[in-house]
């Protein structure tokens, strides 16, 4: 059923898109190819330009230079109303004076008479969408009578009602509490798979991006630092920024000599990195506690924190640097007592020259 709700998925392209606000370069030359039917995350810290990029895709903002393409069509300066996008706002932006059903039907109600479906057709569509987002029977409520998660679903249904060519979501889960966030995430994936729409969402939460997206574009200071599948981004970070931003990596300063990274007591392969000062990004699971005498970073174990299936070790190196390591619960017995010293071997990590 859901597939009848939308047209075939389209590809979206951005070529050299730039946008300044006053002196601030929000986007500084962005090239991006989004595959038809793909679920893409725009991930980055605040001020990285990700929301600006989304608004330019939607036609709510326009680039200073560059081009936006939907399939082969140039839509760079097409107005939002003509572009055929479904946009879900961070704060939902539901029409507060309209019922849920009227909200969802809005995009159909404002169509020109000859394009407008009949009242009966509109009602069928609204019911189908209420079903899709699992809000059956709530069509008569007002937005103020709904929970945050329910409002989010209404916003999604409203955006889908106009048969958009692409679906855009701005921090879709930002305003929700953790439990609702998790279930809605799964929901969005289900709806995306059901509709097959090309979908782009903005987030600053790397877990959300890794969890949900087919591919992730990581933005920093108005540029795309890396575009790749979640595992690529985690395992092959393209830059020091990406390595530091995803995977909760520890940042360790050291020296590279002849292709190996050296830091007090431990070392790590650093293929292709020139000799000199360097930074290693080591994820918590890339540490392994080892016995005294083996190669490893010397540190003091401050606290052991159970977190899901893993134990997190809060450690402090002699120079004061905090190191976070993760071990499986099965290894709990082998750990030294909190407050005593521990040795952490490096089993992996990514090294970038320091600049």
């Amino acid at each position: 059923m859901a597939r009848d709700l939308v047209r075939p998925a389209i590809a979206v392209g951005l070529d050299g898109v730039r946008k300044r606000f006053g002196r601030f370069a929000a986007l500084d030359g962005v090239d991006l190819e989004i595959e038809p039917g793909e679920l893409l995350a725009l991930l980055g810290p605040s001020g990285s330009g990700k929301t600006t990029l989304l608004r330019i895709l939607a036609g709510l903002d326009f680039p200073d230079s560059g081009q936006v393409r939907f399939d082969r069509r140039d839509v760079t300066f097409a107005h939002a109303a003509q572009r055929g996008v479904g946009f879900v706002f961070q704060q939902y932006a539901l029409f507060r004076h309209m019922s849920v059903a009227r909200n969802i039907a809005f995009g159909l109600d404002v169509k020109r008479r000859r394009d407008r479906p009949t009242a009966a057709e509109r009602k069928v569509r609204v019911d189908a969408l209420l079903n899709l987002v699992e809000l059956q029977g709530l069509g008569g409520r007002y937005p103020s009578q709904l929970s945050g998660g329910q409002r989010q679903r209404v916003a999604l249904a409203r955006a889908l009602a106009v048969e958009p060519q692409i679906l855009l979501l701005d921090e879709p889960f930002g305003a929700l509490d953790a439990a609702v966030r998790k279930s809605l995430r799964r929901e969005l994936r289900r709806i995306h798979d059901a509709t097959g729409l090309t979908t782009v969402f903005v987030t600053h939460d790397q877990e959300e991006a890794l969890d949900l997206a087919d591919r992730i574009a990581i933005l920093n200071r108005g540029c795309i630092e890396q575009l790749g599948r979640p595992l690529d981004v985690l395992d092959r970070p393209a830059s020091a920024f990406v390595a530091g931003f995803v995977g909760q990596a520890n940042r360790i300063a050291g020296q590279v000599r002849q292709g190996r990274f050296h830091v007090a007591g431990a070392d790590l392969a650093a293929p292709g990195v020139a000799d000199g000062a360097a930074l290693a990004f080591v994820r918590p699971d890339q540490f392994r506690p080892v016995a005294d005498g083996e190669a490893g970073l010397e540190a003091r174990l401050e606290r052991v924190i159970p977190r899901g299936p893993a134990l997190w070790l809060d450690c402090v190196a002699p120079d004061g640097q905090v190191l976070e390591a993760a071990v499986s619960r099965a290894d709990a017995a082998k750990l030294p007592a909190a407050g005593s010293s521990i040795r952490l071997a490096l089993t992996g990590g990514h090294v970038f020259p320091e600049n």
Partner: protein
Amino acid sequence: MSTAKLRSAADDPAWVKAAVIGVAVLFVAAMLVAPLATVFTQALAKGLGASLQALHDPDALAAIRLTLTTAALAVPINAAFGLCASWAIAKHEFAGKSLLITLIDLPFSVSPVVAGLSYVLVFGLQGWLGPWLEARGIKIIFATPGIVLATVFVTFPFIARELIPLMQAQGTDEEEAAVSLGASGLTTFFRVTAPNIRWGLLYGVLLCNARAMGEFGAVSVVSGHIRGVTDTMPLHVEILYNEYDFVGAFSVAALLCLLAVVTLGLKALLERLQPQTGERGH
């Protein structure tokens, strides 16, 4: 908390509460209610008949008609300009925006007499546009257009001031959502913006109307006090009072008061009617 056990630290002793409430009530009674009551007792001093007769005087009827005409013109004009100004200020960024906000408040800070005088200087016979207007037989000062202009000036801030904070609080998200769903600018305004601000707009219109009917200073300067022609109700009250026609003066004054009371009553009713599901401006 109403019960003694649940009293919070912020609660004052009973005598303080009583004193504060007493002062407030006394002040309102002495400064607002008593003078209003006097207006009505003076109007009815020689019976209801005399009072009604005073209102039937042709000059009084002309004044009432002029006041209603002025309000009927000034309020829609200010509603239109107030909507435009608050739309521009709340939903768009542009150079000179803070200057515009300051200018909107100007009528609040300028003495109405000064406003009236400035209109005389612009449109009067000796004014900038005077000769040009006279050559074409257009009369603004000492005529109805001048009175409407002066009233528009004095009542300009009411609607804009009411709408700007409301529209700013609501932001542009809903409008952007409407546009992204394919709505045109006009559709967006009538289906999304207008319903969200209708209560604030009504409230501003009522306040604006009350002031438009009651304005004295600016109108006094531009009117020329021609009885039966350019006298509005407040001006007529003054003329009758200066002629020691107390019943006449207070009868017209009482009618003005009634109009104001009806306005305030409507306002209170509006506040009750405001739906819980809709926007809450106040």
